[in-house]
């Protein structure tokens, strides 16, 4: 029986692995997701069949309620709100891990069992990681949803306090290990871990949230794996490790693409002074060419190759459908249209890809930074749609906040049209010399309405 259950969990884990393998191409990705969810079904059914379940009502209520909430979330969420959604789901996963570990401790105490040392060590670990993941994810959600201020909240002695808190948590953790029967210790541990989660995410700027979410995602995997050590379940360990690895890799990719260290993201309070940097700093005395939609349409309509470079502003304006329409019209006129996707354009990895996919843009028209950069020299018009940092040429010179970050070389193309609402800087809070380049024309206004105007004007030609 137990052997059969173990085999079934192994099968589930294998399905997860095969599912993730299929995510290596958009053509097979969807079936991969189904494989993985089938693996999850097997794991659940196995547990229901062999897990020694006695009281069914609780279980059925839990499953029905949870599934209903999850399905509603999945159905209602806007594509532009994906980062928040992932944060929230992640928080629930972490919370569940912490709850399971706590319940296991209570159950063992009730049953009067002696808690072996390895379990006594892994329980507080699992509770700690799970609780931090929960509260951290909720704050990240709040920041992205703008329920909590997106600014990096800083206060004096912040790091010292967090360090102190962490030391205290370690102490309480050891207390739980030594005296597992104390529910007080467990309670303090949970409370302190929740506070730690909040306090570590609060000082991080809203725009850095994706890195945080990805890291928390990794934590929730590690939390699941730790729970696996608690209840000696290989399935949990394998799946947790997979998720842990996935989160770490994505975190690493984002940090590299921003040319910042993880420590800088977590403790650098990037974006604390965002407001201070706003405003037309350094603009005086330099010329900015502002054009109308009519001028822009003219440039686009008679170009041979046009490259669209979307950024976070595309998500804010939700202009993806209009952009696609503009591309169709241009293609109808014989203009070649490509999309240049910077690895950290937007606010989470692959953000632009998802938005453009929603607007039915075929994925083979999207080009990675390394593929498209050599093409800019033969590009007639680059259209920067709500992007800023990812096209900022000051990244090439040392001494800037962006120094060393690879960028899209739009300034190599013959003409650049920039669609944004103002001269305000982007996420990094620094000015963009591109806007003062003689090749550049600014088309001010919300991206959605600007693109709509361009469509009208191109049609009118």
């Amino acid at each position: 029986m137990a052997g059969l259950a173990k085999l079934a969990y192994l099968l589930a884990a294998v399905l997860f692995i095969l599912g993730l393998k299929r995510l290596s191409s958009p053509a097979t990705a969807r079936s991969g997701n189904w494989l993985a969810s089938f693996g999850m079904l097997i794991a659940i059914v196995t547990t229901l069949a062999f897990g020694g379940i006695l009281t069914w009502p609780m279980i059925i209520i839990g499953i029905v309620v949870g599934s209903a909430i999850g399905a509603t979330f999945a159905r209602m969420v806007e594509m532009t709100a994906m980062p928040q959604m992932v944060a929230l789901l992640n928080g629930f996963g972490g919370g569940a891990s912490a709850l399971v570990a706590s319940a296991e401790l209570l159950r063992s105490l009730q049953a009067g069992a002696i808690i072996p040392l390895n379990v006594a060590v892994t329980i507080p670990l699992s509770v700690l990681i799970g609780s931090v993941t929960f509260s951290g994810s909720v704050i990240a959600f709040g920041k992205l949803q703008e329920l909590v201020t997106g600014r990096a909240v800083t206060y004096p002695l912040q790091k010292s306090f967090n360090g102190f808190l962490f030391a205290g948590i370690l102490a309480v953790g050891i207390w739980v290990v030594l005296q597992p029967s104390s529910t007080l210790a467990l309670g303090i541990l949970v409370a302190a871990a929740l506070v730690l989660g909040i306090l570590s995410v609060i000082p991080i700027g809203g725009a850095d949230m994706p890195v945080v979410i990805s890291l928390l995602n990794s934590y929730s995997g590690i939390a699941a794996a730790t729970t696996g050590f608690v209840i000696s379940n290989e399935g949990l360990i394998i799946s947790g490790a997979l998720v842990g690895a996935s989160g770490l890799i994505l975190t690493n990719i984002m940090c590299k693409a921003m040319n910042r260290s993880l420590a800088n993201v977590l403790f650098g309070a990037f974006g604390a002074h965002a407001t201070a940097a706003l405003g037309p700093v350094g603009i005086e005395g330099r010329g900015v060419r502002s054009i109308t939609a009519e001028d822009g349409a003219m440039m686009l309509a008679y170009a041979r190759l046009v490259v669209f470079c979307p950024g976070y502003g595309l998500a804010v304006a939700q202009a993806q459908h209009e952009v696609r329409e503009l591309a169709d019209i241009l293609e109808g006129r014989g203009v070649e249209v490509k999309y240049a996707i910077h690895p950290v354009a937007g606010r989470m990895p692959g953000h632009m890809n998802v938005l453009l996919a929603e607007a039915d843009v075929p994925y083979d028209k999207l080009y990675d930074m390394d593929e498209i950069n050599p093409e800019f020299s033969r590009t007639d018009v680059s259209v920067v749609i709500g992007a800023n940092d990812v096209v900022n040429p000051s990244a090439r010179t040392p001494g800037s906040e962006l120094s060393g970050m690879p960028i899209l070389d739009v300034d190599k193309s013959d003409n650049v049209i920039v669609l944004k609402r103002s001269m305000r800087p982007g996420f990094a809070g620094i000015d963009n010399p591109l806007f003062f380049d003689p090749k550049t024309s600014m088309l001010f206004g919300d991206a959605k309405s600007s693109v709509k105007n361009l469509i009208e004007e191109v049609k009118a030609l």
Partner: protein
Amino acid sequence: MIEELVGLLVIFVLAMFVGFEVITKVPPTLHTPLMSGSNAISGITIIGALVMAGRGQSRAASILGLVAVVFAMINVVGGFLVTDRMLRMFRRDKKEQR
């Protein structure tokens, strides 16, 4: 006991290797679905939650277990469905399809 722990550690280490190898092959295009999909997989704690909620040995444990089941199911169902919603949108250029 220690031996059993090391046995589980072996599995953890190997799974980490598999994870790294498999995930590094996912192209940037699919990083958002990867995040939500792997997130759904981390909802595997559901199996622990079910046991806690269902064994009914302790009232407190059952209640914590119930909440855990709800949380984990939100994570699992929400994660897989939202990933599918995203992936459904990805398509190759029709003209180039054979």
